[in-house]
């Protein structure tokens, strides 16, 4: 079986924030690699501060990248001159977390949606208004509302506008950074539905960043779990959710509350104190899988099932992978 060539290839991506006042530099993202195939969604989960958002911003070149490459449609974005990068932005778009702050408060919806169209000249000038109306319909908004300002819309409607702006230039790839976490639950479901139907209709590839595991399970084909700036587990959604291999992934999944008070109470009673995942960071000697990466020159990365990868980093002391 030969997979289609990936739309996006991220290799050894690293982002380092410079040293500040006596503190050492922070490696916010370190050695992150993954592919996204056309029309597929990769869910990126992890706790706050694990580097999810920074990864998304680094892929979009909104954040200086200190190591690695990001290839979109075969072109390395990290080495593109500014003008070509701007032209490439037609293929990659961004949906930000907070729909209340990601729209220019003094521009009408029509102006907001027309801006990318004019910049990339994807439609003739005369057809801009028509395309704006089409986008409004696409995201389920009334095209008659384009002359209003963002503050006249609800959070869910604003997020639809943000999505419409991202889709204006027919991108191939969209980074959705916590696209629903600022919305109420009912609206969340509507926005998730919208994203899924748009993905099917437009054959979009999505990088879906979220801390809500249930949402990610619903939308993602593959899932990457981040911790401490690294990906600790990567696999198909079913593999990661049903047979989590890394102790951090298991811990994360166990933290999801169960909607049954009795069972939840029982689970809390037997829950252990958070293991210290930072505990073992040895660069030499055998890892938990019994391989000395420093000696063999291999990445600390193990394929435990076809397409299911686990890092041997951040394993708490005394925890070993299940055999078989």
């Amino acid at each position, binding site marked *: 079986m030969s997979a289609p060539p990936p739309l996006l290839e991220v290799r050894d991506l690293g982002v380092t924030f410079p040293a500040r006042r006596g503190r050492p530099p922070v490696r916010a993202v370190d050695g992150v690699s993954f592919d996204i195939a056309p029309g597929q969604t990769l869910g990126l989960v992890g706790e706050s501060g694990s580097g999810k958002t920074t990864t998304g911003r680094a892929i979009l070149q909104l954040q200086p990248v200190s190591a690695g490459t990001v290839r979109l449609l075969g072109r390395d974005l990290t080495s593109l001159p500014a003008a070509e990068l701007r*032209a490439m*932005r037609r293929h990659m778009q*961004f949906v930000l977390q907070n729909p209340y702050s*990601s*729209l*220019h408060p003094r521009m009408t919806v029509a102006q907001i949606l027309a*801006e990318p169209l004019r*910049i990339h000249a994807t439609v003739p000038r005369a057809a801009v208004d028509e395309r704006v109306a089409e986008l409004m319909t696409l995201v389920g908004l009334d095209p008659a509302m384009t002359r209003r300002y963002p503050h006249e819309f609800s959070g869910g409607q604003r997020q639809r506008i943000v999505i419409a*702006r991202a889709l204006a*230039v027919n991108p191939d790839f969209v980074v959705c950074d916590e696209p629903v976490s600022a919305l109420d639950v009912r609206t969340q479901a509507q926005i998730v539905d919208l994203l899924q139907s748009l993905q099917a209709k437009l054959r979009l590839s999505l990088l879906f960043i979220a801390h809500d595991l249930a949402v990610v399970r619903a939308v993602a084909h593959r899932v990457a779990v981040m911790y401490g700036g690294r990906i600790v587990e990567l696999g198909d959604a079913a593999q990661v959710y049903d047979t989590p291999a890394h102790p951090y992934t298991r811990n994360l999944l166990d933290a999801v509350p169960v909607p049954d008070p009795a069972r939840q109470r029982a689970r809390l009673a037997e829950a252990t104190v958070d293991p210290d995942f930072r505990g073992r960071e040895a660069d030499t000697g055998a890892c938990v899988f019994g391989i000395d990466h420093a000696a063999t020159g291999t990445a600390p990365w193990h394929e435990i099932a076809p397409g299911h990868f686990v890092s041997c980093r951040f394993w708490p002391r005394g925890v070993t992978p299940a055999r078989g």
Partner: protein
Amino acid sequence: MVAIGAAMLALLLLVVVAGPSIAPFNAAKTSANSLAGPDATHWLGTDSIGRDLLSRLIVGGRGTLTITFVAVALALAAGLVLGLVSGYVGGKVDLVIMRLLDVVFAFPVFLLAIAVVAALGPTIRNLIITIAIVYTPTLARVVRGPVLSVKRWDHVEAARSVGVGEFRIAVVHVLPLVISPILVQTSLTLANTIFTVTALSFLGLGPPPPDPNWGSMLAEARQFMELAPLTVIGPAVAIVFASLTFIVLANGLREVLDVGNR
């Protein structure tokens, strides 16, 4: 507040625009009737060489206010450009621009103004340039501050991710959102500038006679203060009124635009 300020401003603008055509007499025409008190013909009386005070006040106000408006407009333009570039580009550019403005800022306003006017000569043009230079740093700083914050807002990042160029981001996505504090500061600068212009004219560094202006009128009248107090009170009240206009306007704008609730 804004309504009162706007009404006062309208009166000032009327003086600037209509000027000589609403003045009852030719402001430069002398007569034998000197230092007269107010009467039906000369509402505010006459000065030491028999010129109509009200007419001189109106025509002089036109001069003073025109200098003020033009100078502040120049300072605002320079302040906007420097502040926006400094705040938006940041880094070394910011450092260089801000340190250069600090040099200007370090001089007391009058010392600098007197030095420049003395060096270049007391003409209207030089007075305008001087005042524009003196007030540019204040306005540039008021622009730079909010730019530093707004440039990190989400919608700016969204614009960048869409592919909007940096120049357009700065002008379209940042500048319109920092306008409120700039309006307030501009209004306050106008109030200060009125004082600066009249004070320099009072010291003889303003536009040369015979063009009347409030500062030089005050200086001339000072000698006859005891004989004819109105000759001093007239321009003095006019100066205070004009300054007050912009202070009231600034306060009103601050309320309306709600610049922070600190």
